[in-house]
């Protein structure tokens, strides 16, 4: 059919164009900064008003923020999702929770930032710190962790639950020894997606935990830290144009991390599919 062939070509062109824009943009940004990345850039502190040196504290800071965020959102998110999928009855309350969770993932990150500032920095008295910034990021990643985990848990066939219960297992054993392990790689994928979503977030940590410039890495969670996205923001807005190479390099590093993370997700998914086929 001639019509089918035309449609196939049209759709092909549209898809190709979209992919080309995304890949082109990513590739351009990563490649532009590649020549600025070297060992010193990755392991040194910035010097000379950010013109020289590297972004070591920003990389370490990002790791710290993510660690705090995930330490908060993985247990809370997974247990919340377990409650929703395994324990709660299907009623208005549960449906409200699911909808609220979806709305939460649509809230602008700057709102999370201001909320974190009020709650963690001021009310809890954490000040501008890795802890406050990490918790704010954690709050932001919570809806992703919950909805991804929830989806993976409800995808576990009911027959597994029945098989386990019929052996005289309690609901808790069934959940933790059969249901969660069967959903394991999907849950992990969801967590990595959540990390990918928040690793580049600037607004939530801008007021709550980010430092423009530090001379030593934080040793307690009550100190502020630098981070990759806020470092990009600072270099792009506050410093003169002679920091351009450092800016490009930082963008490149951040994007490479994101690409690697999602590559990892791709591998996990491929393994998952192969496991099912086997």
């Amino acid at each position, binding site marked *: 059919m001639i019509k089918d062939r035309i449609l196939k070509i049209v759709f092909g062109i549209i898809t190709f164009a979209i992919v080309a824009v995304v890949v082109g943009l990513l590739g351009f940004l990563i490649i532009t900064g590649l020549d600025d990345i070297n060992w010193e850039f990755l392991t040194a502190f910035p010097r000379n008003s950010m013109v020289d040196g590297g972004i070591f504290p920003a990389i370490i800071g990002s790791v710290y923020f993510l660690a705090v965020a995930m330490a908060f959102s993985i247990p809370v998110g997974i247990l919340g999702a377990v409650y929703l999928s395994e324990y709660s009855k299907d009623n208005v309350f549960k449906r409200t929770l699911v909808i609220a969770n979806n709305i939460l993932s649509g809230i602008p990150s700057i709102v999370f930032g201001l909320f974190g500032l009020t709650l963690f920095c001021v009310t809890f008295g954490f000040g501008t710190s890795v802890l406050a910034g990490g918790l704010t990021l954690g709050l932001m990643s919570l809806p992703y962790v919950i909805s991804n985990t929830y989806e993976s848990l409800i995808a576990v066939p009911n027959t*597994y639950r*029945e*098989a386990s219960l019929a*052996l*005289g297992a309690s609901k808790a054993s069934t959940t933790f*020894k059969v249901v969660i392990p069967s959903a394991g790689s999907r849950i992990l994928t969801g967590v990595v997606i959540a990390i990918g979503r928040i690793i580049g977030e600037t607004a939530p940590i801008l007021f709550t935990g980010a430092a423009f410039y530090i001379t030593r890495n934080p040793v307690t969670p009550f100190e502020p830290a630098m981070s990759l996205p806020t470092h990009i923001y600072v270099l792009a807005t506050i410093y003169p144009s002679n920091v351009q190479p450092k800016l490009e390099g930082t963008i490149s590093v951040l994007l490479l991390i994101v690409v690697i993370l999602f590559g990892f997700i791709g591998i996990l998914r491929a393994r998952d599919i192969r*496991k099912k086929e*086997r």
Partner: protein
Amino acid sequence: MEKDNVIFEIKKLNFFYGSNHILKDIDCGIQKNKVTAVVGPSGCGKTTFLRTLNRMSDLAPTANYTGQILLDGENILDQDPIKVREKVGMVFQQPNPFPKSIRNNLIYGPKLHGEKNKKTLDDIVESSLKQSALWDEVKDNLKKSGMALSGGQQQRLCIARALSVKPEVLLLDEPTSALDPIATSKIEELVEELSKSYTIIIVTHNLQQALRISDYMMFFYLGELVEFDLTEKMATNPADKRTNDYLRGIFS
């Protein structure tokens, strides 16, 4: 029917899903170490009846019942369902091995009930696989995923898994409906073999199968237990007209 060899004594059992009256005044005794087939048209309550015997029916949020089911003299409707299910195992319509290795499928139950000794667990794996006639096919591949077996093997693995916790009764809910004829005949042979040491209650849509493998037959119609007798007697000379009509294929 013999009175002294009854394992399940069911008295005035009524079962409801919400306001739906599924089982009506069921009174009967199920014989120990025999195969009892439960037959009847779709929606007659036979699967609900089976699932009540190990309290799997509790999983439906609106389930409700009255009456008594005595297992060895104790009313299982008053007991903790977890304890009941240890004694009354179940195999389902669709083979449902866990996405774990064959060995882990079989030690899951014993471990839950506190068995930690590796040697004992190995023995359980071997004996349950031998009882379910799967040992020779998988003994060199116990680490292989249970999902990688064929449908018939998966179902025999599920039977082995049910046996791994040493139940007294085995409930089979249309265990061969998803299997091909060869796998089906293997399961049927197995049921006959297992009935020497276990009480087996099997729901089936396949009348021929019920006639082939069962000692006793229960015919359910619209939630009532219409007739319950020796299979031979029911097949040749049913007491109730409805049983006769069903067995002759007048309705199905």
